[in-house]
């Protein structure tokens, strides 16, 4: 039996920070007084997210999510909600673009401090079939704030 330690790429994918957000998601649950909400799911893998935002004068005052799915999609959603509070909608869309760049392997995005905890997800770019998991909450965000 192969009992060698996990490969570096895998341990980069499943970092403690990601598992922590998966097991103790931040800002999970319904948001009272939401002004924007979008439900998205990936029918192929079953990941679901219901993203709710309270936007006032183009500023995201609060954001919460309800969802279920793999560690990557749930950690990405949890980390995203942490980052979005008190951002303007254009700032949020800029972050979405940086996140997407990081998933395409852009190393400058992976070092961009503005992405906060999300940088822990940089390793996902090496697993093409999992990129959609990390981007699901961000696609929900983009849909939600679309004019």
């Amino acid at each position, binding site marked *: 039996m*192969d009992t060698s330690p996990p490969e570096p790429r895998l341990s980069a994918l499943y970092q403690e920070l990601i598992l922590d957000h998966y097991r103790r998601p931040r800002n999970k649950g319904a948001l009272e007084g939401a002004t924007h909400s979008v439900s998205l799911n990936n029918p192929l893998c079953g990941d679901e997210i219901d993203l709710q935002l309270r936007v006032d004068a183009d500023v995201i005052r609060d954001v919460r999510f309800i969802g279920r799915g793999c560690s990557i999609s749930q950690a990405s959603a949890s980390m995203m909600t942490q980052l979005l509070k008190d951002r303007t909608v254009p700032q949020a869309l800029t972050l979405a673009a940086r996140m997407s760049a990081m998933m395409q392997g852009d190393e400058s995005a992976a070092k961009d401090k503005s992405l906060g905890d999300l940088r822990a997800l940089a390793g996902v770019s090496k697993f093409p079939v999992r990129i959609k998991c990390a981007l699901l909450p961000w696609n929900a965000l983009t849909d939600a704030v679309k004019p």
Partner: protein
Amino acid sequence: MTVYGPRGHRAGVVSFTYGDIHPHDIATILDQDGVCIRAGHHCTQPLMRRLNVPATARASFYLYNELGDVAALAGSLVKAGALFGYVPA
């Protein structure tokens, strides 16, 4: 680990979940060792709801599999358990 299906008269098709590790995470970890399983709803979403699981992992054995393949599956599952803190790394 939970194995789903009848207790007797089993075929070489084993659906399972492992703690709170999402089946797609299990599949990604096993894939890195060249162990190919299926993960997901297996076209049985109502059953998944009934079982109250998001999805299951599923290993299938056939004529071309050897005992070594079973050992490889078990070894990779230990690795998944280590990554998610179920067994010591």
